[in-house]
C-alpha cells in the first residue's frame, strides 16, 4: 500500500470523506449562482426560474405524501387550508401536524 493509501486507511480517512462531501455539496450550492451570473437572463429563463419554487415543493412532497397514504394527504390539505385562511405559517404547520396526530391516534 502506498503512502496515500495508508493515510486514507487511517482515521484521517473520515476527515477526508467529510471534506470530500463538503466540497461537492458546496460546489452544488454555488454552481447555480456562478452559472446564472454568466448567462443573460431572458424573459424565457426568468419564467422558468419563477416556476421553480413551487415546482421543487411539489416534486419533493408529492411522492412522500402519497407513499404515506390518505392520513398524510388529509393532514397536508388541512395545513394548506389553515395557511390559506390564517396566512401565518406556524398555524398551518401546527394544524397539519395536529391533524396527522389525531388521525393516527384514532386510525
Amino acid at each position, binding site marked *: 500500500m502506498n503512502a496515500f*493509501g495508508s493515510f*486514507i486507511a487511517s482515521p484521517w*480517512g*473520515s*476527515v*477526508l*470523506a*467529510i*471534506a*470530500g*462531501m463538503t466540497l*461537492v*455539496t*458546496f*460546489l*452544488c*450550492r454555488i*454552481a*447555480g*449562482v456562478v*452559472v*446564472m*451570473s454568466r448567462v443573460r437572463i431572458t424573459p424565457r429563463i426568468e419564467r*422558468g*426560474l*419563477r*416556476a*421553480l*419554487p*413551487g*415546482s*421543487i*415543493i*411539489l*416534486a*419533493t*412532497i*408529492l*411522492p*412522500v*405524501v*402519497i407513499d*404515506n397514504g390518505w392520513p*398524510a394527504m388529509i*393532514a*397536508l390539505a388541512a*395545513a*394548506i387550508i389553515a*395557511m390559506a385562511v390564517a*396566512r401565518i*405559517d*406556524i398555524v*398551518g*404547520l401546527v394544524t*397539519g*401536524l395536529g*391533524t*396527522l*396526530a389525531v388521525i*393516527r391516534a384514532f386510525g
Partner: protein
Amino acid sequence: MSPVLRPHFSAQGLRQGARAALPAFPGFIMFALAFGTAAAQKGLSLGETLGLSAFVYAGASQMVGLEIWQQVWTPTTILTIMTVTAVVNARMIMLGATLQPWLKHEPLPRTALNLFLLTEAGWLIGTRYHNEGGRDVGVLLGCALILWLVWLATTFVGFFAGALVPEPKRFGLDLVMPIFFGVMLVPLWKGAKPALPWLAAGVVSLIVHALVPGYLFIIAGALAGVVAGMLIE
C-alpha cells in the same frame, strides 16, 4: 408594499431572518435528532457526526452518507461517497440559480457564506420574503445562520439522547418537512395558470419516483417544472 427596493444588507435584516426561520425549526430538529441518533448507532465518533452536520449540512445526503460510511476508507469508497453526495445535492444548483439576481451585488465572502448555509427551507423562507418585495440579504443570512445553529445543536442532542426521544410517528413528526413545504406553497400561489408548471413537476416526480430508486425524483420534477415554465407564455 414599499416601492421596489435595491438589494441591500442590514443587521436588522439578520434578526428579521432569524425570526422568520421559526416555522422551519420543527423539521430541522426532527431531522437532526434522527441523524445524530443514526450516526451514533452506526458507530461514528462525535467529531465525525458533528463534522458532517457542520460542514456538509445537507440532511438527505448526510443520511445517505451513513449508509455507505466506512470504518476503513479507500480511494474508491471516498470517491463513491462524494459521487452519491453530489447526486443527492444536485437540486441545490437550482436553488442558487434563483438567488443570483438578489445576490449579484453582494461582496463575495458574504455570498460564499450565504451559499455555504443554503438549505431548501431557508431558501423557501427567503424566496417568500423576496416575492413580497423584500431585498435585504440580511434576512436570507439571518435565517440560514439560525437554522445552522439549530441543526448543529440538535445533532449533538441526537447523538447522545436519540433513544430518549419518543416515537416521532405518534405526533406526526415524521412528516413535518413535507407539511412545512406544503404550507410554504400557499404564499407562492398566484392563480391557476402560473401553477401549471407545478403540475408538470408533480407528475414527473411521481413517475420518476415509481421507476427510479433514490432521490432523483426531486431534481427530475423540478427540472420539468422549469421547462414547463419556460414553454408556457
